[in-house]
């Protein structure tokens, strides 16, 4: 086993563990923190089912973003949809035998990769060119885009410039999954791609990438408009009430 295989195996394990634990911890703190008051942005759904529908529109179609900025919406949809397709396409490295829809998605995945990079480029240009957005951008905001561009770019490069031996790469991935390590093909583009993905996984729970889980915990989006019908009381507010006595 080469040093490179071992170090990449360890890196990927570490990244996955940090990602998973970090994300769980964040989600746990969001879930644990109460929303003491009813603050849905109105007009809001008056039923649970309505809220689920609102959330689906928000997460699936970026409804609010569509209202606010069409260009950002287009770039954001290109990037996220492209990313989704790519993630689905990459399932082929983790599954044996392949599910049929993973096979179906393969050709689209490549377009996904292109859309992703184009979308990111658009977002980068907007961040740089629109004075308002530039004003609120920190170095980390640019770096995040660069990191994602690096992942997309190196991925496309692996695909188009320097065809990797995907059979042995898949053996490597499955080996990681089953703790039966196999050698990693020594392709510089692939190695870059993997290193950047690991970095992304590691920074995820510590960065603005938390917007992905956070949107589900946004009280302005996930609350039902039923304040008059149902009394909503956070545990700490109930304690306050008991301590304060009744009128």
């Amino acid at each position, binding site marked *: 086993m080469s040093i490179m295989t071992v170090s990449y195996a360890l890196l990927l394990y570490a990244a996955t563990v940090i990602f998973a634990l970090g994300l769980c911890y*964040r989600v746990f703190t*969001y879930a644990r*923190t*109460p*929303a*003491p*008051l*009813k*603050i849905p*942005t*109105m*007009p*809001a*759904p*008056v039923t649970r089912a309505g809220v689920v529908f609102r959330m689906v529109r*928000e997460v699936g179609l970026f409804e*609010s*973003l569509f*209202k*606010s*900025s069409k260009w*950002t919406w287009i770039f*954001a949809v290109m990037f996220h949809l492209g990313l989704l397709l790519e993630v689905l396409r990459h399932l082929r490295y983790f599954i044996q035998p392949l599910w049929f829809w993973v096979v179906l998605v393969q050709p689209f995945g490549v377009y996904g990769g292109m859309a992703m990079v184009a979308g990111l480029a658009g977002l980068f240009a*907007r*961040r740089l060119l629109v*004075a*308002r*957005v530039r*004003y*609120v*951008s*920190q*170095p*980390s*905001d640019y770096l995040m885009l660069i990191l994602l561009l690096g992942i997309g770019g190196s991925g496309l490069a692996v695909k188009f410039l320097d065809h990797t031996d995907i059979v042995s790469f898949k053996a490597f991935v499955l080996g990681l999954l089953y703790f039966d390590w196999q050698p990693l093909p020594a392709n510089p583009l692939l190695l870059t791609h993997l290193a950047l993905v690991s970095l992304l996984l590691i920074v995820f729970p*510590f*960065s*603005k990438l*938390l*917007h992905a889980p*956070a*949107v589900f*915990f*946004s*009280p*302005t*989006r996930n609350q039902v*408009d039923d*304040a*008059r019908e*149902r*009394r*909503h*009381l*956070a545990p*700490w*507010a109930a304690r*306050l009430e008991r301590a*304060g006595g009744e*009128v």
Partner: protein
Amino acid sequence: MAKIDFEVPVIGEYLETPALQPAAMAKSAPFKASPQHQQALGFPSELLENWEEVAIAKLGELLNKYESLRVYLDACVKCGSCSDKCHYFLGTGDPKNMPVARQDLLRSVYRRHFTLGGKLFPKLVGARDLDKSVLDEWYSYFHQCSQCRRCSVFCPYGIDTAEISMAAREIMDEIGVGQKYCNEIIGKVHTIGNNLGLNAAALANTLEGLEEDVKDDTGFDIRFPLDVEGADVLLITPSADFFAEPHIDGLIGYGKVFHQAGVSWTMSTYASEAANFAMFIGNYEQMRKVALRIRKAAIDLKVKRIVVGECGHAWRVAYSFWNTLAGPFDFLDPNYPVPQHIVEFTYDLIQRNAIKLDKEANDHMRLTFHDSCNVARATRMGDRPGGQLALPRAVIKASCNHYFDMPADTIGEKTFCCGGGGGLLTDDLMELRVKGALPRMQALRQVQKEHGVTHMAAICAICKSQFSKVLPYYDFPMDTIVSVHQLVSNAIQLGAKT
């Protein structure tokens, strides 16, 4: 109009997004609360010696108490979609009035003290230590947010800058830096029962005078009852309704509606205020204390229902928070919503043909309607989502012949704040108020040009006061602003059998 030492924005053809003018409003800050005002609310009377520590501890406490704060400080991706949505940014061009930049004032400190990235690489993620200059910035720019929530409509994660402003103001109160306007008023409600400090005798006097005026005007005995035990309805209305223009014309309208409906009603001296400024300072305990006065009044007066008068943030507190803060209201008649808005009440009568309205009585006006931010984005009326937008329009249209909406992106859920909400309706913030009103003035000008609109109706005491003050700056007559129930008052056929 008072003397002006700032430039009043010019209304253009369209509402333009201004170029960035850094620090344009850096000097804007409301008067600070005096030691007495602070003490009356249990806040430190002046800046604490170890204020940095206390502020960080308070932030930590709030992070554990408010999911909104915790999630919103993490979730922002700096996409900038909200950056051109705030009326204060549109009116001033100050980049710190972009909602995301306003949040960042607090987020930067949050990152420094509560996140790994900010502890290790502050420069990289825009994290900074809390120091005096940061505090000054907080005081200035968190008092340039009217908590109107327009930004939350447009944010892909629903990030509500109002929640951030409220938290920041709560932290500032906790370290001894309060705002005079809000804290003085909250103190008055605790001791006297209303924002104005109008005592029971003065209130009774005012209402008696009002009864006489209305009698002279209409020939009918319209009553404005106070502290009547056993009345069916307790009306909770903003105290501005008792004397300010055009608010009082709205109050007369409520009185006529109750009269025609034959419903016995009363107001209360103990709870003579619908406004709850404690919301503006983000303080749950204070807000609860103010809300409990209404519960107590309802119990003491043995009423069956509570109806709330025309006021935006008050309706938010009533509709969205009362049940939480002062509920359950199981001692009231379950056949009616608790609380009910006066517009819901009147709308219902119109639906049932229980009152007659003569639209021609308002033919001297061509009307539009200003959706108050709190009503539109933080409450509901009726059974269906959006009723808070539809019902007031239905009541207005039933009362007049000439009604025209302002452009779609300036009303409904996208409505622009009047510029005076959120505890900013004070003369020491006049520049901010005038400039923040620009987007609404622009939309009003548009319907004035296109449809000859002469009057704008509103259902919020703050909006009415704010517009009365700022309309003249933009060359509109002061009385362009009218109450919704003023229109009802003009149109209602008293004594008519239905």
